[in-house]
């Protein structure tokens, strides 16, 4: 017999960001069918996916998981965490599972734990590519067999089906690798026969936690009750409220299209959705539509190692240097390239040398329309080379040359760069780039996503 109402609680918008304990306790006390949390995003760039490192802090994530598990276990309801460890790859998943196991030991908690892997082996991806199952989205980096083999790591973004499989297998705590934000919250409701049009829109609203509230004070929980016709969203924290405006406006955030959200298996259309106030703090949403797609596709993400970065940060305040900064940097570049070629035997195309000039166009680069001159600039000399050692060697050549690069107005040896630190050079580690923006057509929505069950 299908449940008529399902109440979902989102602990917060991102697992590393926190929430108020009282809000989560209240949310679950008010009656919840599960607690979800999104643990990842591509917002922070390709570093986490490329390196396999999670984004912490570990103690913060552990605190948040502890509270989520405590409340859910007490209420006897499932926990669903998606995009574990920030990038949702295998090392990120393992890092999260470690924390879960640690918590279970420390608190003597016992439950069935499902881990859903979303990392895709390069061989598997190359085969799929050669069979024509992978198509580019727009815009997409060029992809071929070589690019696939050259990459560090790929993940596929799971939809609701792998999570539903874990729920059906009796898992109480489900930790997923890379996962659609919406799928974290829509999986259980759809399993309980809530229409996808309702569950997916509710999921989209919940996935940022308290961000759909009118004036989010700090990251916090959100709750939504779904039924056959719509959902009602209300923050458990009495100090904040949702308004029809805030909930509708939040649908715009980070979406290229205000009305159409493409998910695995279909498109959520909110063109005719209605947002009505319920009391002072809740909003009822109805009228959303879901159109199933003919083909089932999952989004692919991947990162490739591009090189290693070293930087120098320095201030320039001399107005005579500043008034000729473009030619200063241009001639400086020529001298650096010559010296790097002479001493390191590297040609200019073997590394990138980027002058980032804050106070001019550091933020917008060549899109900067303004040319207002300030009294100082912050210069970052940014070098990316094939190895960290090379980048570290180029930087002192670049910075020392810049330090004493002459201008005609001052006769004598000058020092142009005000370094805030000693040493001036900072090794910034490996640099990655996103190497794929493609969709993979699947016959079976669960096949790429291996599930492992553990009884803790």
């Amino acid at each position, binding site marked *: 017999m299908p449940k008529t109402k399902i109440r979902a609680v989102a602990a917060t918008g991102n697992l590393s960001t926190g929430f108020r304990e009282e809000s989560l306790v209240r949310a679950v006390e008010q009656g919840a069918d599960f607690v979800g949390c999104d643990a990842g995003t591509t917002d922070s760039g390709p570093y986490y996916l490329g390196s396999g490192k999670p984004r912490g802090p570990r103690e913060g994530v552990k605190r948040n998981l502890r509270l989520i598990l405590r409340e859910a276990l007490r209420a006897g309801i499932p926990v669903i965490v998606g995009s574990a460890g920030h990038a949702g790859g295998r090392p990120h998943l393992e890092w999260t599972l470690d924390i879960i196991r640690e918590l279970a030991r420390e608190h003597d908690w016992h439950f069935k734990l499902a881990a859903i892997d979303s990392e895709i082996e390069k061989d598997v991806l190359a085969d799929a590519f050669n069979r024509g199952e992978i198509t580019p989205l727009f815009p997409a980096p060029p992809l071929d067999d070589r690019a696939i083999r050259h990459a560090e790591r790929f993940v596929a973004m799971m939809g609701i089906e792998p999570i539903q499989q874990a729920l059906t297998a009796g898992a109480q705590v489900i930790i997923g690798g890379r996962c659609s934000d919406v799928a974290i919250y829509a999986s259980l409701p759809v399993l309980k026969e809530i229409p996808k049009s309702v569950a997916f829109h509710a999921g989209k609203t919940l996935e940022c936690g308290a961000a759909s509230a009118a004036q989010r004070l700090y990251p916090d929980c959100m709750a939504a009750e779904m039924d056959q016709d719509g959902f009602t969203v209300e923050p458990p924290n009495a100090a904040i409220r949702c308004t029809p405006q805030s909930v509708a406006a939040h649908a715009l955030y*980070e979406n*290229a*299209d205000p009305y159409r959200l493409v998910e695995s298996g279909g498109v959520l259309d909110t063109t005719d959705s209605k947002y009505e106030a319920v009391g002072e703090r809740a909003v009822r949403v109805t009228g959303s539509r879901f159109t199933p797609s003919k083909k089932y596709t999952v989004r692919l993400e991947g990162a490739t190692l591009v090189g290693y970065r070293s930087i120098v940060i320095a201030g320039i305040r001399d107005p005579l240097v500043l008034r000729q900064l473009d030619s200063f940097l241009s001639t400086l570049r020529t001298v650096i390239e010559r010296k790097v070629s002479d001493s390191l035997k590297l040609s200019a195309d073997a590394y990138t040398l980027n002058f980032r000039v804050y106070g001019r166009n550091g933020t917008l680069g060549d*899109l900067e329309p303004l040319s207002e001159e300030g009294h100082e600039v912050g210069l970052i000399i940014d070098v990316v080379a094939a190895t960290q050692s090379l980048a570290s060697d180029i930087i002192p050549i670049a910075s020392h040359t810049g330090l004493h690069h002459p201008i005609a107005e001052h006769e004598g040896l000058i020092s142009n760069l005000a370094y805030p630190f000693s040493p001036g050079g900072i090794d910034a580690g490996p640099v990655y780039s996103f190497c794929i923006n493609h969709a993979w057509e699947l016959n079976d929505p669960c096949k790429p996503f291996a599930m492992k069950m553990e009884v803790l």
Partner: protein
Amino acid sequence: MRELWQFTKLIRSKNAGPFELTFDIMFKNRDSLDDVMRREVLTPKVIAQLYRVDVKHVKFFVVEQLLAVKISIPRRVFSGDVRDTDIYGGQFHSPLVRLAVKD
């Protein structure tokens, strides 16, 4: 002469994934939206020029019930690429803030 921000409650940009940028411009009231749109201050062509993208790749929506304009464009430099200047895409809206709204 006035500037766009004086007509709005919010102007922001953010990544919609690493390959696309999306801008949200929320107007104070109906008159503000109408004033700005009537003067063609914000159009796909203006965006295409400011951000150096093909005008046919500019997605432009007027969201009436929110008194908002949403614009989405492909990122010419993907998030995290070596030449990127803004990983999150959060400051790309800045040239729009003081767009002239002529009387």
